[in-house]
C-alpha cells in the first residue's frame, strides 16, 4: 500500500509564538509521501478533529502525523479519531512541538519544530497496524498455601465474587498461626482465629480446598495459567486467571548460633507456648525465663513479635522474671512499640548487647553472660529456661518453586515485591502474587494489607469479562528466531516462552497478555527477530535519520 501521510499541525490557540507556523506548513508539504498538510489552532477540540477526519477521508490519508502537544495528553483522543476515520489507531505519529519545543526554549524554534515533524513523518512511514483482541479471562483463582494468609486470601477473593481453589501441601489447613500463644490485648486466641477462618473457608461455596496437594507446573500467562496439581498419585491440569502464593515461612534454631544444642532448658517459642497453655504440667513454676534475640538475624520482625507477646504471657500466667537479650529491637510493625512499652511496664527487662552473649550450663540452669552496652557492665543471668531465637527461613521447596515460575528470590531465598514503590504485591510475572510470610518480612498489618491489595489487583486484572490486548505488538518473527533463548532469559515479566510452530522448529513466543511492553527483548535479540511495533528498529532509526537530513 502506498504511504500517504497527512500532517496536522496545531498551534495551540495561536499561543506558540516562537514558531513560524506558515513556514513550517510550507516546508513540511515538501516532505516525502506527504499528501496533505493542515494548520489548526485547536486540533484537540471537536471542530479541529472533525476537520482532520474529513481531510483523512477526502485525501485518502493512511498515516497521520500530528504536531501538537505532548502525546501523553491527547494521544488517545487522536487514536480514537483515527479509528473513527477508519484507520488503525496505530497509524499515528506525534511530534511534541509544545512542551518539548516551543515552551522549552527561548527565541525562534521554527527549525527545531520542523525537525521534530520530520522525525515523526519518518517514523510514520514505517507504521504497521496493530490489532486489538478480546481474550476471555479465566476468573478462577489459585491460592497456594492453606495457612491463615492463604485462607484469608481465598475468603477475600470470594468477597469480591471470585472463585478459588486453595491448595495445601499438608493434610489439613492451618499453617503456623497456631504457634502463637496469643496476641497481647486481643481477646481472640490464634486457635480461635484459625478455627473460625477454617470454618469460613469450608463453608464457602466459592472455595474449593485441596489438601495433601502440590503444584508441579505453571504455564501460560495472566488471565490464562495452566497449572498441574498433584494430589497423591493423581495429577490434574487446571486453568486459572491468577495465582496467589501464600507459602509461608519456617522457623529454625540455628545450631551455630547457640553453642549448646537445644536441650531441656533451651527451648523454642513453640515449646514455651505449650508450657503456657498447660502450666499445670510444669513440675514447678520457672523463676526466671530469658529470651535471646538478634543473634541469627537482626531486624527480623517475627521473632520480636513472638518474644514480646510470649514475654507478656509469661508475666501474666507464670509470673516469672523475664529478661530479653537483644541488640536492636526492631519495633516498626504496627502496635509493636506499644507492646514493647507494655512489656517494660510489666517488668520485662531488656538487656542490650553488642557482642553475642555466651551461653553455658550451670547447675541444671542456663547461664547467659553478656556485656550490657547501656549499663556498660557484664551481666550474668541464670535462667530456668532460655527461649532461643529462631531464624525465619523460606519453606522447603521455595527454590524449586521459584525456578519453576522463573521468578527471582532475594538473597535469603524469600520472594520480593516486584517494585516496592510501584507494585508492592505483584511479582515480576503479571497475574502471580506473593503475600505474607513467603516474603519473609511479615507482621500482621502488612500481611492483611498484602492480602487485600493482592485480591484487589486480581479483581482489577480480571474484571473485564474480556480483556483487550494488543495483538502481537511485540512479536517474534519465527523465521528469524534462532531459538537462542536470550529473550526468554531476559524478559522481566516472564512473558516469553519457547513453543513449536507447526511442530517443526522451536521458537520464542511472546504472550500478549503477559507482555508489559518494555522492549528489552527487542533490543537484545542477536538475530533481530523481535519487532516492537511503535518502537521497531526501523522506526527508531527513522527518527534518528531525520537528524542528519537537511530540511
Amino acid at each position, binding site marked *: 500500500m502506498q504511504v500517504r501521510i497527512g500532517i496536522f499541525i496545531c498551534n495551540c490557540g495561536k499561543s506558540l509564538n516562537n514558531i513560524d507556523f506558515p513556514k513550517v506548513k510550507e516546508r513540511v508539504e515538501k516532505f516525502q509521501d506527504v499528501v496533505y498538510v493542515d494548520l489548526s489552532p485547536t486540533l484537540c477540540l471537536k471542530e479541529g478533529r472533525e476537520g482532520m477526519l474529513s481531510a483523512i477521508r477526502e485525501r485518502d490519508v493512511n498515516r497521520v502525523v500530528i504536531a501538537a502537544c505532548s502525546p501523553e495528553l491527547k494521544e488517545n483522543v487522536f487514536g480514537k479519531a483515527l479509528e473513527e476515520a477508519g484507520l488503525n489507531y496505530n497509524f499515528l505519529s506525534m511530534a511534541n512541538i509544545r512542551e518539548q519545543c516551543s*515552551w522549552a526554549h527561548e527565541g525562534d524554534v521554527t527549525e527545531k519544530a520542523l525537525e521534530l515533524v520530520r522525525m515523526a513523518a519518518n517514523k510514520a512511514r514505517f507504521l504497521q497496524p496493530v490489532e486489538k483482541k478480546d481474550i476471555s479471562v479465566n476468573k478462577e483463582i489459585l491460592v497456594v498455601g492453606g495457612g491463615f494468609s492463604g485462607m484469608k486470601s481465598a475468603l477475600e477473593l470470594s468477597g469480591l465474587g471470585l472463585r478459588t481453589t486453595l491448595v495445601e501441601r499438608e493434610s489439613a489447613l492451618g499453617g503456623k498461626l497456631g504457634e502463637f500463644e496469643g496476641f497481647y490485648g486481643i481477646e481472640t486466641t490464634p486457635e480461635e482465629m484459625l478455627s473460625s477462618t477454617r470454618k469460613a473457608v469450608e463453608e464457602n461455596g466459592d472455595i474449593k480446598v485441596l489438601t495433601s496437594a502440590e503444584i508441579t507446573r505453571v504455564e501460560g500467562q495472566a488471565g490464562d495459567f495452566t497449572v498441574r496439581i498433584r494430589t497423591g498419585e493423581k495429577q490434574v491440569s487446571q486453568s486459572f486467571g491468577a495465582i496467589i502464593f501464600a507459602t509461608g515461612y519456617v522457623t529454625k534454631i540455628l545450631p551455630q548460633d547457640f553453642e549448646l544444642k537445644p536441650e531441656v532448658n533451651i527451648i523454642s517459642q513453640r515449646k514455651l507456648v505449650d508450657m503456657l497453655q498447660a502450666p499445670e504440667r510444669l513440675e514447678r513454676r520457672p523463676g526466671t525465663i530469658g529470651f535471646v534475640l538478634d543473634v541469627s538475624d537482626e531486624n527480623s520482625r517475627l521473632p520480636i513479635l513472638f518474644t514480646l507477646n510470649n514475654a507478656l504471657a509469661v508475666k501474666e500466667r507464670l509470673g516469672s522474671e523475664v529478661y530479653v537479650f537483644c541488640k536492636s529491637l526492631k519495633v516498626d510493625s504496627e502496635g509493636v512499640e506499644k507492646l514493647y512499652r507494655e512489656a517494660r511496664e510489666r517488668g520485662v527487662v531488656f538487656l542490650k548487647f553488642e557482642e553475642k552473649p555466651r551461653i553455658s550450663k550451670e547447675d541444671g540452669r542456663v547461664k547467659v553472660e553478656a556485656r550490657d552496652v547501656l549499663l556498660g557492665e557484664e551481666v550474668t543471668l541464670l535462667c530456668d529456661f532460655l527461649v532461643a531465637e529462631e531464624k525465619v527461613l523460606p519453606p522447603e521447596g521455595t527454590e524449586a518453586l521459584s525456578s519453576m515460575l522463573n521468578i527471582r528470590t532475594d538473597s535469603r531465598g524469600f520472594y520480593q515485591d516486584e517494585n516496592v514503590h510501584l507494585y508492592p504485591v505483584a511479582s515480576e510475572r503479571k497475574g502471580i502474587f506473593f503475600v505474607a510470610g513467603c516474603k519473609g518480612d511479615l507482621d500482621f498489618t502488612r500481611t492483611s494489607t498484602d492480602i487485600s491489595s493482592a485480591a484487589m489487583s486480581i479483581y482489577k486484572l480480571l474484571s473485564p469479562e474480556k480483556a483487550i490486548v494488543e495483538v502481537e505488538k511485540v512479536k517474534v518473527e519465527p523465521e528469524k528466531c534462532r531459538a537462542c533463548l536470550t529473550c526468554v532469559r*531476559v524478559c522481566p515479566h516472564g512473558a516469553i516462552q519457547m513453543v513449536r510452530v507447526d511442530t517443526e522448529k522451536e521458537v520464542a513466543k511472546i504472550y500478549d497478555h503477559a507482555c508489559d511492553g518494555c522492549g528489552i527483548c527487542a533490543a*537484545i535479540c542477536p538475530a533481530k527477530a523481535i519487532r516492537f511495533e511503535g518502537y521497531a528498529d526501523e522506526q527508531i532509526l527513522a527518527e534518528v535519520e531525520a537528524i542528519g537530513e537537511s530540511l
Partner: protein
Amino acid sequence: MNGEDNKIVAFCCEHSAYPVANKAGRMRLHYPDNVRIICVPCAGRVDVQHILKAFEKGAAGVLVMGCQEGACQHLTGNTRAKERVKYTESLLKEVGIDGGRVRMVNLAPDMAQRFIDEVKEMAEKIEGR
C-alpha cells in the same frame, strides 16, 4: 540554533524522562534547543545500534535517560541500559569518539532541573570538543 553539527539525541523513557522533559517545558525551564528527544517505552529498549546510528547521522552526543535505579517499571530495563551505554562507550572509543559523549542518566518523574542540567552539561561538553 547551536549549529547543525552539535545535536544531542536523548532517548527518553516514557515512564520518567519523557514526562520530565514535558515538565521542564511546562515550567518554562529553558534548555539548549539542540537536543532531540526520542520516546522509548523503557531505557532497556535502547540498543547499541540506535546510539551508534545517532552518531553516524551526525549527532555529537547521546543521552539515554531512564528511571531511577531500583524504580524501573520493568525491573531491569535501566540497569541493562546502563550496561549497554558502557559497552557503547567502548565501541565508540574504538572509532575515536570520546567516551563522555554518551551518557546514562537516571531520573525520577520530578527531576526537571536535573534533566536540564544533564542536557546542558552534554551541550557544553560537545561545544568544547
